[in-house]
């Protein structure tokens, strides 16, 4: 058997591919966080909880209205985004004048309330969500069995990530957004409604979390605690990539997924902490993150 780093290449390729799949989730979630932080300067601690709400929204749509996976892929992020808009309008927008910490505390509180409420209503062991019929089964790639659904997750999240990057970095709307974060007063003077833009940005950022939730529902259990398991890693990803850097969030998300996949073959017990080891090293050497710039 051919080996690389003392690991059979077959196992290595398999693990790297799986790492890429997990990385897709990290990328999608950290992208939303990066957009929100970049535009609003808010550290959105409710991101994990909103990812969970996205998964639950898909489950509730199926349970109560018979709405399947494909429509839910659009509807659930919309609902989560709408929730985000209300949250921003009624609460977050009051805190912009204050220290960052207040936004963090508010969103942390929102996360606790959401998780507690869903646990109370639907229990701690979670609800099943089936894989859509069109994506059942899998492909034998020779080195591993790849479930079709996992392949779809990579494709869907890459499209979303690249689309978001393009919209913000390469379009006129994105240019307004970036300008508004640099100097809101000036941009407003040009006749652009900055508060509405900020609200919509927050709504879009959390809708991305909702989308990740729907993508995750068939793989993991739809569980009130699914977000809190993931959010810590995602924050580490954002810190490593550089707070607010969109490209950084995408590249780091995928890269750390790969690294985690590697750790699972070499030393599985460490797979949960390898991300944080990297974070510590990056913070020591380049405190602004790999793609961040000093402010």
């Amino acid at each position: 058997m051919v080996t690389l780093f003392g690991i059979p290449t077959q196992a290595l390729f398999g693990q790297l591919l799986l790492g890429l799949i997990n990385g897709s989730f990290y990328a999608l979630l950290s992208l939303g966080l990066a957009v929100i932080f970049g535009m609003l300067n808010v550290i959105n601690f409710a991101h994990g909880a909103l990812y969970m709400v996205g998964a639950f929204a898909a489950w509730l749509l199926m349970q109560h209205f018979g709405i399947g996976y494909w429509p839910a892929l659009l509807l659930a992020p919309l609902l989560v985004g709408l929730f985000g808009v209300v949250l921003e309008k009624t609460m977050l927008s009051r805190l912009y004048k204050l220290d960052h910490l207040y936004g963090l505390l508010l969103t942390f509180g929102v996360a606790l309330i959401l998780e507690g409420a869903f646990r109370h209503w639907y229990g701690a062991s979670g609800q099943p969500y089936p894989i859509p019929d069109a994506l059942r089964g899998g492909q034998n790639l020779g080195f591993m069995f790849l479930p079709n659904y996992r392949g779809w997750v990579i494709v869907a999240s890459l499209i979303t990530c690249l689309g978001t990057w393009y919209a913000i970095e390469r379009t006129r709307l994105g240019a307004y957004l970036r300008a508004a974060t640099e100097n809101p007063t000036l941009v407003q003077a040009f006749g652009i409604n900055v508060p509405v833009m900020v609200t919509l940005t927050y709504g879009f950022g959390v809708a991305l979390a909702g989308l990740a939730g729907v993508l995750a529902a068939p793989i993991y259990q739809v569980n009130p605690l699914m977000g809190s398991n993931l959010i810590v890693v995602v924050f580490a990803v954002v810190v490593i990539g550089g707070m607010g850097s969109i490209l950084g969030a995408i590249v780091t998300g995928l890269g750390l997924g790969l690294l985690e996949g590697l750790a699972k073959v070499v030393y599985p017990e460490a797979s949960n902490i390898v991300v944080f080891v990297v974070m510590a090293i990056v913070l020591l050497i380049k405190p602004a993150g790999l793609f961040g710039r000093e402010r």
Partner: protein
Amino acid sequence: MRSILLAGTALATLASGAAHAQMSDNVIKIGMLSDRSGIYADINGEGSAIAARLAAEEFGNAVNGTKVEIIVGDHQNKADIAANLARQWIDTEKVDVVADVPNSAAALAVQVITRDKKRLFLMSGPGSTDLTGKECSPYGFHWTWDNHAVASATARALVEQGRKSWYFLTADYAFGHSLEAEAASTLKEIGGTVKGGVRHPLGTSDFSSFLLQAQSSGAQVVGFANAGGDTINAVKQASEFGLPQGGQTMAALLLNINDVHALGLPIAQGLTLANSFYWDMTDETRAWSKRFEERTGRKPSMNQAGVYSSVKHYLKAVQEAGTDDPDKVAAKMRGMPVNDMMMKDVRIADNGRVMNHMYLLQVKTPAESKHPWDYFKVLKDIPGDQAYIDPKKSGCPLVK
């Protein structure tokens, strides 16, 4: 004559005074210490408190005229919080008995405190065999199941079906290690083999890489030595990666009816497991489970049924002994067989192990399931003497 009357009155006064003194503080206080917010909140949690209340209600919430009070606490799966709460309950709230306590680490911590402070401890949820082994206590009673009972019953059943080579996916903490060790020692005893295993961190959401390793091991059985959310995710993803289709048998060494409910039958079907209670077995279990469901909206887990059984047996012992003195009640509990909707004439061994039956169950297919919660087929009834470690070999110093 007068002096005799006087003496009689005096005696009667003394006697009645003594009778009052029998119940420590005019209330029998049961402390339900549980995971009320984490991964075990569905299989114990508030459902356990309700099960205890159902038991107390059968006595009219009072024993020999003394009120029964039930209080609850959340140990959050942390042994130090469990220990602090238990200590505080016993010292300041005058709790007579601590019950429930899922999570072996929490239960081991509470066992030490209840042993030191001479308070009764009724466990239904922790799995460690140490609780009736080297850490046993004259006041500690282990109801419902333990790691040996669930793991060895499942391993034995599968080897008997010719599924001899195993690969373990084990949660990397004391509970997972012990569950794996119990299964592995049974395999060794009856001619099975262990082809390997991998340890995953507690609370892993993605099992794909571990499953890939299990898949390439070529073992006939993949044994999940974990619990709750970990097991649910592992089983769900195993089916996604086509392990069952590839001819490998999934064995969840610890599975509850709530886990099956969460997985759904299309994925859980065919799993073999061992439980000491299933709601749909006799008229009595069905009637009790109906009462439980009316309060909670779901069927009871074996842990919750065990809480009912243990609290009922405790109250019965207090009634018979006419006191809540821990030593006398413990002796009474050991002296009489456990009899309720869950257990029939079950004895309690000297190490505190309740020697109840275990049932080997198999999850039904969606076609076999006729109504909600119709999940299990009973394959085999395993008497307590075969299910549990022989108390003489448990390592408990209380067994002579």
